């Protein structure tokens, strides 16, 4: 599965994207965030306020309870500030 990061989430994680092999304990976006936070302090920092960071699966906004089992690309980013 490909993970992509944007704006300050990207800066905190320290990379634009990565390919990961998910453990079987991960089935939702919330599980994925919990697993990522255990991988290092850069992830801990990026996701320190879990209510803030938004997620999208294959270019569609999703909630933390969404399943990632069929996802090809999961994105994490701050609330949007375009327009």
């Amino acid at each position, binding site marked *: 599965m490909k993970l*992509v990061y*944007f*704006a*300050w989430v990207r800066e905190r994680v320290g990379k634009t994207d990565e390919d990961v092999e998910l453990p079987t304990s991960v089935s939702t976006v919330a599980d994925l965030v919990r697993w990522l936070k255990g991988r290092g302090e850069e992830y801990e920092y990026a996701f320190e306020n879990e209510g803030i960071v938004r997620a*999208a699966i294959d*270019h*569609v*906004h999703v909630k933390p309870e969404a399943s990632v089992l069929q996802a090809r690309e999961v*994105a994490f*980013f*701050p*609330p*949007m*500030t*375009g*327009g």
Partner: protein
Amino acid sequence: MAVTIRIQTEHFDVTAETARLTAGRADIGAVVAFTGLCRDEGGRLSALELEHYPGMAEAEMSRIATEAQERWPLMGLTIIHRFGMIAPREEIVLVLTASTHRHAAFHAAEFLMDYLKTQAPFWKREHLKDGTVGEWVQAKGVDDLAAGRWV
């Protein structure tokens, strides 16, 4: 119906985009144009840097455009969003809506902007006059409230 959605670094021209939207049609009675500009925030900013999520930004703008067409009798719409470095006074975003009468065009343009600001994956970062890179712009609760009006 003519739907134009573009994400680009280049400038856009409102007059040219309006002409493209109405070309060959004599049944359009109203075109509403909204242009969002970069402010200098009291002289502090040298530029805004706009980052976006390629692929999803286009997809989200298309979804927003489809929803506007389902809600109002539009004859065409255009959404152009720039990215990269944008200086004060330069344009950031354009929304054009065309309809037979003004109400649909006004409402659809406002709806499109409210949803673009809260749903389209773009992020702004400040670049300051003193040459340093400033903060990422924080999302405003007032924008969520504005978008919430249409639910």
